[in-house]
């Protein structure tokens, strides 16, 4: 199919062209309210065709190559460009496979979900647990008129679990994620320990007053807030003049405790592969080094427009043209021990989960989220769950105020994040009475 499509485009007489093919073979199992609910198999295949004539791009996509071949005569390049598609080249090997994951059957995936659910309802019989276990094989093929012909296969697997508990007519959610792609033997202990910790304090509700509190943010909540960071480092935002980081390269804009990588080669991470969506090798980039902003991310187009090279961040599906996007965001861990740090906090908020990340003014890095799961800490002890509270700030200001970083990172598939302790964040609540002493 790819050969026939490539031949047809070649005959159409474009100066440059590229064919991007995405094939997916995925098995997933879903559990609902503690029970097996659905098994699903996806057999997908799609084609994206980019052509260039007279320095203008045209783009067409679809699932049926015959329909695309029929549509080629009507494809009229309209978007101005100066890019040259990359030549054939060799790429670094990236760990994207695990033989063990390849061998997972429906029964294996079902077994992972059942194990987690059985253990969770054993510790809390009133929990209603939904879970999803997925194993996906993806094959990407790129061919272009400059001699590039490249392909990779990758295999990912993960488990998502979400428990619902109703207490005092309030609905509480607890959720966790486990990246299973490396094929290490599945161990539900970490999920169990996390749920146990949360459940221990969930039923005690505490009100707080509005104000500024030292804040410890766990990785899942930090992930939601970081959606405000990606637009700022994008080469598109640089080109169009709206990134808050314009003119800041080399300047310290975050706490010197913060080092952030975008690592497209991280083993078994969801955003890893030898090359990006236009055949440019991926690499590990240092975006912020000890607080100092080092670089923007580019695809071919934004690279040319900013007098820079593509950084291997051309992200796409077959349905779209590439645009700059993060591969795998990695915040370097620090030295903080969670237990010790918590025990030293006089009065602080522990943020486990938030709702609404990405809904604020993300261009400026602002966020304003509702605390989905958070606890008040006083004199080193967790007092209880706080409710009806919003947390607001700006991602750049927030990361300036980091005072401690956890000594491990949580694997969230395409992010590796530690917990962070901040000197203060603003919280707003409907509570007017003084908090309990």
């Amino acid at each position, binding site marked *: 199919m790819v050969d026939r499509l490539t031949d047809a485009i070649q005959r159409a007489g474009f100066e440059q062209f590229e064919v991007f093919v995405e094939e997916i073979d995925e098995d997933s199992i879903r559990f609902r309210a503690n029970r097996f609910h659905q098994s699903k198999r996806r*057999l997908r295949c799609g084609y994206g065709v980019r052509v260039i004539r007279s320095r203008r791009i*045209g783009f067409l996509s679809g699932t049926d190559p015959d329909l695309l071949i029929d549509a080629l005569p009507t494809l009229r390049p309209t978007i101005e460009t100066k890019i040259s598609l990359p030549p054939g080249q060799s790429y670094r090997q990236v760990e994207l496979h695990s033989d063990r994951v390849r061998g997972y059957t429906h029964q294996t995936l079902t077994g992972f979900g059942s194990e987690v659910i059985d253990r969770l309802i054993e510790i809390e019989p009133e929990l209603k647990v939904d879970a999803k276990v997925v194993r996906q094989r993806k094959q990407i093929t790129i061919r272009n008129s400059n001699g590039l012909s490249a392909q990779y296969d990758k295999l990912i697997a993960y488990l998502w679990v979400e428990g619902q508990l109703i207490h005092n007519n309030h609905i509480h959610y607890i959720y966790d994620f486990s990246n299973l792609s490396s094929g290490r033997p599945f161990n539900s202990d970490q999920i169990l320990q996390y749920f146990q910790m949360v459940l221990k304090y969930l039923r005690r509700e505490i009100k707080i007053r509005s104000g500024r509190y030292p804040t410890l943010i766990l990785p899942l909540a930090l992930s939601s807030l970081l959606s405000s960071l990606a637009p700022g480092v994008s080469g598109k935002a640089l080109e169009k003049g709206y990134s808050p980081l314009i003119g800041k390269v080399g300047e310290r804009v975050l706490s010197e405790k913060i080092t952030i990588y975008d690592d497209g080669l991280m083993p078994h991470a969801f955003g890893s592969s030898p090359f990006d969506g236009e055949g440019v090798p991926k690499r590990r980039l240092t975006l912020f080094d000890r607080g100092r902003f080092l670089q923007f991310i580019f695809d071919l187009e934004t690279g040319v427009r900013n007098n820079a090279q593509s950084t291997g961040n051309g992200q796409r599906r077959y349905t779209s043209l590439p645009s700059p996007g993060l591969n795998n965001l990695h915040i370097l861990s620090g030295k903080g021990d969670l237990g010790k740090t918590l025990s030293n906090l006089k009065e602080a908020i522990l943020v486990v989960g938030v709702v609404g990340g990405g809904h604020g003014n993300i261009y400026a890095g602002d966020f304003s989220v509702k605390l989905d799961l958070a606890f008040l800490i006083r004199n080193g002890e967790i007092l209880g769950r706080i409710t009806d509270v919003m947390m607001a700030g700006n991602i750049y200001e927030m990361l300036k105020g980091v005072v401690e970083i956890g000594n491990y990172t949580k694997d969230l598939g395409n992010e590796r994040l530690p917990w962070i302790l901040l000197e203060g964040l603003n919280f707003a609540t409907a509570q007017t009475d003084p908090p309990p002493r």
Partner: protein
Amino acid sequence: MEGALKAIDAPYVEARFEESWYTTIQFRGKELDQVTTSVERGGIIRGFDGERYATIVYNDPKRLKSTKVLRLENKKAVKGLPPIKVEILVEKKRDPREVSIDEKIELLRSYNDIIIKTEGITTTQSYYYDHFRRRYYLNTEGRDIIEEVAYCGIMLSGIAKDGMNVQSYGKTFGHQEGFESLKGKEELAEEVAAKTLELIRAERVESGIYDCIIDPELAGVFIHEAFGHLAEADHLYENPRLLKIMAIGERIGCERLSCVDDPTLAHKRGSYRFDDEGVEGKKTYLIKEGRISSYLHSRETATKLGVEPTGNGRAINYNFAPIVRMSNTYILPGSASKEELFEKLDRGLYVCGSRGGQTALEDFIFAARIGYLIENGRITRPVREVILSGNIFQTLRNIVEVGNDLVVQGGVGGCGKDGQAPLPVGTGGPHLLIKGVVIGGR
């Protein structure tokens, strides 16, 4: 299609096959940034045994033939609907494929030019999207439905930057009313430019508790996010304690508050005749005069709760199995004029537009595009970063007045749930006066 039904061995099997044509166009600043056209063909087959589903998604029917037959072992009877054979086609005048790509680019360029040529605007993001879909539906009950849907819409955004302060304001419009309905919207482009400049000069709202008047666009997103999702029965049917909290007949707001979900509205963003389970859509009261009136159902949730399906089993495309979703959800208009609402608010916020929202069942959060302080009964100055949050039961009880100026909003984008986004939905309402809303800000 008949062959596809044999891919799964179960008491009930349905097959959906879709052909879709998409166009997207985007300007960023002065430049045309994206023009894409896409033709998708794909199908989904789903079997159900009364308890469990087995599902296969495919693009290439040949690959489907080489896949082994999936079997569901329970053979429970599934409550069915009578056979039907129907074909619902889109008239030519509403089919965006009849309009040339040049005409689409030029319309978008004309709006984009208004914004980018305004002094103080750094850049723009102007987006056109159309979609024509033909869906073939067949199931083992003998329901044989072909339904076409055609949508086109535009999103206009201005971006202004002042140092580290970057602000954007956007407006979106479009339903299933054809390309012609997108013309003549120059005043919206002017509004986008003007409001972007207001925002870059505005201060962040001080966080706290405010009495708020919210405009119809935000009222629609509010009822969708805050109550609509809670009324989706897939959250409820396995959870007796939640069903008790959400009991039918329970008072949830003032008598002036009523809300419906209605896919039968003519040519709105969330309109359809049949859902993705072959069930005919209908108008459903979610709240009637302040009391919970009904939930939204798929076939499965209706069976579990012993009621008729409401025609709300929807999927964003053939990649996904249907789940319980809204269509066009809106608050019915009351009797108070906008002016009467303002007369009742001496000090508070006028909150306008929506950047979207999110819920965790009873907890909600949604972001306004812009807010205005009301002091001594008058609008004084704009504020930014107005994010509203709260507990839905408390907030619905705090709606004290309902305006008479209903608007049902469409536009580019839609609703997200369980990894399926964006689902086309309409949202709407009149101006509302709400007491004691938590606003996150500085």
